[in-house]
């Protein structure tokens, strides 16, 4: 159990979604995966599949079209999961924040855990955010385990047959 707890922060797999960005941040994100910065040192893999991912990296401000996709991706990720908003647009909406089609920063839609400001932020900053995110992942994993244990215990008390219907929330 303790090992699993520890491992939760050891292999952050990321999925990257470009909401509405000018591609400046995206290039920096990819740059942080290149040999020069080598994100895989921390176990980072760009999996491109929300079902496998732990960290959702979003660049660009959210508009009315990209909101649905962003929410879809977030919903399909199994917990514990973390959102990183990369770049000024993702943090607040940036220079586009007053446009008619823009909702705003990512935090208008999803619970953002880590903000990486900058236009565009440096790869070092993005890597730093990912490493911070691993700490958050461990924390969230603890919460999840506690919640699950509590839930199963409650169900066992109510229904001795076991927690078959647990967590329908």
């Amino acid at each position, binding site marked *: 159990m303790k090992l699993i707890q520890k491992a939760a922060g050891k292999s952050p797999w990321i999925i990257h979604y470009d909401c509405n960005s000018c591609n400046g941040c995206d290039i920096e994100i990819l740059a942080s995966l290149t040999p020069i910065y080598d994100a895989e040192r921390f176990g980072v893999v760009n999996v491109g599949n*929300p079902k496998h991912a732990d960290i959702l990296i979003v660049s660009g401000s959210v508009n009315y079209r990209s909101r649905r*996709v*962003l929410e879809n991706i977030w919903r399909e990720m199994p917990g514990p999961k973390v959102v990183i908003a990369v770049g000024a647009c993702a943090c607040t909406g940036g220079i586009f924040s007053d446009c008619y089609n823009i909702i705003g920063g990512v935090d208008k839609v999803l619970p953002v855990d880590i903000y990486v400001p900058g236009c565009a932020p440096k790869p070092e900053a993005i890597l730093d955010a990912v490493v911070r995110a691993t700490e958050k992942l461990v924390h969230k994993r603890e919460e999840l385990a506690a919640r699950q244990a509590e839930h*199963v215990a409650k169900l066992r008390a109510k229904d001795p047959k076991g927690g078959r*219907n647990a967590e329908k929330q």
Partner: protein
Amino acid sequence: MNLLFCLLILLPAAGLTLSLVIRDPRARNAAVIAVSALILAAGCAVGAGAIVNQAGPSIAFSHKTAHILSGCITGADVLLLFFVMWCGVRKRRYTSPFLAGGQFVLLLFFEIYARPETDLPLFVDQLSLVLLLLAAVIGPLILIFSAGYMHVHEAHKGGKSRQNVFYGIIFAFLFAMFLLAASDNICWLYTFWEITTVCSFLLIQFDKTEESVRNAFRTLDLNMLGGFCFISGIILLSLFCNTVSLHDICKLRLAGSLSGNFIALGIVLLCIAGFTKAAMFPFHNWLLGAMVAPTPVSALLHSSTMVKAGVYLVIRLCPVISGTTLGSIVAAAGGFTFMAASVLAVSQSNAKKVLAYSTIANLGLIICCAGIGTKAALGAAILLMIFHAVSKGMLFLAVGTIEQTIGSRNIEDMQGLLKKMPFTTAVTAVGIISMLLPPFGVLLTKWIAIEAAVWSPLVLMFIILGSAFTIVFWAKWIGIISTMSYKPRYERENTLPCMRTVLSALLGLVLLCSCFIGFIYKAVLESYVEGAMLFNSYSESLRLDINDMSVIRLSGITGDTVGGFAVMAVFLLIFILMLFIPWMVSKTKSEIIRPPYFGGELYGNDIRGIDFMGPKDKVEQVIVRNYYFRGVFGSDTLARLFLSVSIGIILIMVGVTL
């Protein structure tokens, strides 16, 4: 014992009369089911008796009676040939009347010039017993199934009910099969052979559509060709060996050069007759056409009766051809059919066609084993005959049930079937697994076949390629039927109880056969295999050695083990684990059901994940289809290539004896 056996043979005749006489549909169905149950019981009793006594029933007639019976049977044959001619001429299709005429002339010649007698015209040994039991167990089950099926079938089709004729023909079919299995006199065998041909002709054109009539005539043409070869072979053998007893023929040994050897030519002609009936390439087309018939007919033709008769004849001749050039060619022909049919099956999306190709492939494998002709191979051939009959009968009936419910026999339409028809889908899945994977019988025989074919690279190549393609088409199918979206609320199937019972019975039979493969081999087949190969030094290199219920080995000459298979219990354990572990896990941590990933373009909150947002914000349904490789494996060029190669093999087979 003999009495029981007579009863078994006479019961279908009673069924035939009853089903034609009784007009009231309810009463007739009851009669059909009752007679079928009786046949089943009698068949089981005969089988059990034969196993206990270590000998099958045999009926001897006085010389005079035998003579009269022979006369009757020849008369029946002549009538049959005239019936075929009449059918063909009436529909202006002249191939089969022409062949029937040819057979008539040969039959006359045979009656006048060569007419040796046998002293034991009806005799059941272990091999005949297998064929007899297959027909006596699966045949009645199919009849009971069709009591439910045909009702719905005719309701769909409309028009006047002709079910009484349908049951009548099937009973006649079973009658002919029982006698065919038991005949030792090869002339009698020939007559019953023709009866099965005509019965299947009548059954295939039962729906009277244009397509079914066309396919029925194709069946008739090809099988009449086979019959023609058969009677020619009989004449050659009776002229040059002076015997018509099948057992005497099996004691022949082809020694020395085959060239100019008329006995060898006779054997080849008998083999070709077997090939036509067993739908081997290049004669396979009739079996593909036969699927237009109502599904119980397909099940009957494919599993226990028609095609198995052809295979039976070739397996009978296995001791004669084993170790000769002829044996190698038969093995190559069988192996080639196995490979070609498996390749062609990959491009098919029609479930019944896939099954038909798979039948052809398996028959090819059986004949291939018979051609290889070691003890292990012979054992494998007979075992495969059993396993294939049971599994394929079940699969056809399951597909028939599915077709009646969803109104399609296309595999692509079977997506999500597990929800709609949980029981039938489970039956189908078990059927597919039993054709494909360990620990079921079909795979075991494939294993033995590969190990026995080691010393003939060509045959080996055919078998290996064929078995790889087999995995492809079965895996695609099982993938489709297991598709489901979430924790479904399973629907209750409303299949008729008799159909359900038959499917469960066959399911049980499949599992039992695979569990007791060792018992079956030891109790029924071992003495036959040993006896048949007694005088054959070639066959010593490998033999099957089955110790108890679950252990199978192949032994080499020196008796050391070549390979072993002792895992029935292990597999059971694994299947239990596969169900038990998820159940355990779900106790501690439950699953959250989420829709599949569509690149974030999922639409709506439906957890089944059916819709996605397409271009121009249009909501579209997700449709995923299988690959069929129609361009590669479905092309006419490939089919034509296979056809010409197989014709070449048949010609070579005849050629080596000239």
